[in-house]
């Protein structure tokens, strides 16, 4: 574990300690010390404080925690950050694909579906950017050798399910029913990749424990699964 080494002075349990700790420890300690001051006068008033306890595994005893315990968050992992950065890239291609619809097809069902995908994925890109910015992370993958980048740093190796440059080119050139077919089959492939990404995320050690990323990834899985089913039906109707 590395962190932000800072000089720290904290008062914990009335004992003055000094040392080098990571920032987050300092933050918690600082806040604890504030609440400790408050707790002194509170204690005089309240005879019986609420219990703070943590059960054990089934059959194991429940242990008391200090009454001034504060909550802590589970870790987030490299896999979480990779997932968000990769999904921004992934979603961006979906938005790019749907942007072709107005000039390439008159099919009402495809148009409606495309508008829906476009609006929800654009919204989700904003959410993912917020998540990353809030954690001091870049919103795109910038390092060579990362998933999705070839050794030249170009996004040649794509996220799962993304259309190849050749597929995108074919889509741009197609019109009418041919476009509909390529769009639907392409988007099914694209969404299928998102499901793989979610599966990979939840199969990575320590990943998906952050509440926001858990909810988002769960949503991607549920909603894109449903959209695949709808696109499969539309595709059948075209044949």
């Amino acid at each position, binding site marked *: 574990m590395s962190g*932000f080494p*800072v000089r720290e002075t904290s008062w914990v349990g009335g004992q003055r300690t000094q040392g080098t700790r990571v*920032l*987050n420890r300092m*933050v*918690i300690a*600082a*806040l604890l010390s504030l*609440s400790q001051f408050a707790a002194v006068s509170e204690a005089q008033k309240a005879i019986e404080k*609420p*219990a*703070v*306890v*943590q*059960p*054990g*595994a089934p059959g194991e005893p*429940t242990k008391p925690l200090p009454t*001034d*315990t*504060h*909550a*802590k968050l*589970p870790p*987030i*992992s*490299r896999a979480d950050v990779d997932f968000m950065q990769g999904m921004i*890239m992934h979603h*961006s291609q979906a938005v790019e694909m749907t942007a072709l619809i107005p000039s390439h097809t008159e099919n009402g069902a495809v148009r409606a579906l495309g*508008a*829906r995908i476009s*609006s*929800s994925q654009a919204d989700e890109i904003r*959410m993912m950017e*917020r*998540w990353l*910015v*809030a*954690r001091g992370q870049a919103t*795109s993958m*910038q390092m060579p*050798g990362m998933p999705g980048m070839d050794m030249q*740093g170009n*996004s040649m190796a794509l996220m799962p399910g993304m259309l190849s440059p050749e597929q995108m080119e074919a889509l741009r050139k197609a019109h009418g029913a041919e476009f509909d077919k390529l769009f639907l089959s392409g988007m099914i492939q694209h969404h299928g990749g998102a499901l793989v990404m979610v599966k990979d995320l*939840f*199969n*990575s*050690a*320590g*990943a998906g424990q*952050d*509440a926001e990323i*858990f*909810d988002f990834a*769960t*949503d991607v899985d*549920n909603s894109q*699964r*449903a959209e695949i*089913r709808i696109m499969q039906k539309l595709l059948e109707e075209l044949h």
Partner: protein
Amino acid sequence: MNLTRRMVLSLAAMAAVLIFPELSHTQEPKPAPAPGQTQTSPQEQEKPKAQADPFAAQPAPPLPPGTKGSDVNDPRAKLKPGMYDAGETAKGMKHVAFVKKPDAFQLQATSSDDPSVQKMLGQLGVGSAEKMPKGMQMVIAQLAFANSDFAFQGNHLFQGNFYGVNIYDISNPAKTSLLTSMVCPGGQGDVSVYGNLMFMSVEMPNGRIDCGAQGFPPEPAPEPGHEKDRRLPVPQKERFRGVRVFDISDIKSPKQVAAVQTCRGSHTHTLVVDPNDKDNVYIYVSGTSFVRQSEELAGCSGEGPEKDPNTALFRIDVIKVPVAHPEEAAIVSHPRVFIDPRSGVINGLNNGGSHGKGEEKPRDTDQCHDITVYSSIGLAAGACSGNGLLLDIKDPVNPKRVDAVNDPNYSYWHSATFSNDGSKVVFTDEWGGGLGARCRANDPNKWGADAIFNLKDEKLSFANYYKLPAAQGDTENCVAHNGSLIPVPGRDIEVQAWYQGGVSVMDFTDPEHPQEIAYFDRGPIDPKMLVLGGDWSAYWYNGAIYGSEIARGLDVFELTSTDLLTQNEIDAAKSVRVKELNVQNQQKLEWQPKLVVAKAYVDQLERSQALPKDQIASLRKAIRNAEKSHLKEKQVAKLKAMTGGLESGAGTAKTHADASRMQALAEILKHPVA
């Protein structure tokens, strides 16, 4: 709440940053780019230069043609924002207590102006301490510690939380006080109680069998040159996703006695008590999240039904809990409630519709979100993502679907409430997952609303929608959410939570014309960005209304009389006492034949003008005299003498509701009790 939605939070995800030691490795110095290589990806180049602030709330799109929005002139539309000092307004109810979320369930209690907060944000070096919206600085990682659903028993209130459960003493509701904070993370912390047992839902990957808050360690960074290698799944045998069972005989120290693992975890669960089985209780588990790998829990498969007929999708799970031996709790069935009975395919229901036209995603029906059981009529109402289901639960281990409905305005079927006589079901649509602002002036009032259905001969038929009538702001997450019946005799009344839309009390006695009769609301947590908050659940329990405020804590309310609800009606509701309340395990409400109940009926018959004024007056006089005399024989005889007129009136009453009131009133007057 279904927190699985787009528009995910501007949420205080934020300060998460502050507390992530393990994240820091991602901030290690990055290798210098190879010569001649650009660091800018093609995607970045395509982005407009002036990127919109990703934290800013988005205004609503224009109202779709032919739809109506909510009322911007309502006093609730523009209340002062604030975490603990927001403006409040109420009608027909009084805010009697507020208890702040305990410290054990908060990272810290701070205000954004606190110098220590400013300092630590600066020290983080994310370079965005100033850019970071104030609300974000103030409310840190709330979703991980969000308050969720309630259960009640005797003088105890159990408030679920993504981080555990808090238990409160409500012997005096106005002086509600915290007894126990039980730390046991894993979300959402949906909670039920039965005798000495407490049940709790866990769905997130940070859930641990031992209730530890540390989660699981992240994978170490890959060796140089192996970044692209596909890694093998890492099963975590210590992980827990499913339903925990606690012994709560010592209310200050709940003890975990069982933890039943499921493939999809438990987003919500429902306690089912079989009237014919005293030795066991059952738990219906609704899982909405990903299916875990079989390496972690044997037999779990997330494949489609075509590939794997044993998929963990398209089913619910039923846990049997022997009351005398809760440690033996185990899954006993996986009912395929979406099966097509003719073809036998297990994905026989498809999503019931969406808000179409580019607004919202459709939902597939491969999961239930929540199930409300009403054992005394042998039915359950399942709110199952793309559909509303009616289940026959006379054999609780093998529920069978008897009807399913969809609705073109519905996005996500979320929860259900039966009317007390079982003739109606109120479903909710959690459009936007509870994380989005969906009660804005431009949000259609049929989207994210209640849908009231008539229920007759095991068939559901749509009657009308009800949505919070007051417009809410861009920074207030708001949509239909959890509610319970208020036991006012002679009427169907539900109190319901609408997240930052507050609490709304709705009369749906006439399902075609639902009407709001009381409300409470607060201003948004933050004026500029949507910070997740508001009421998750609002339930009536033995005379008071409790609101589970996601970010702020716990609210207690009392009803106050208005034209739309008299003091007699409130007192009659208060006369109903229950020992335990798990709202999704609906119990038949019963009123003792007390004169206060009779007075409530008289008020209702006056309001609906079902009886002439002089008959109302003489009924009131007779009841008053009987009360004064402490039910002396002579006065009671006078009451009995008035029942003939009521019974004949019932035969000619204009509405079924008034006929029922007259009959019920006559029954009380025949045999009143003190």
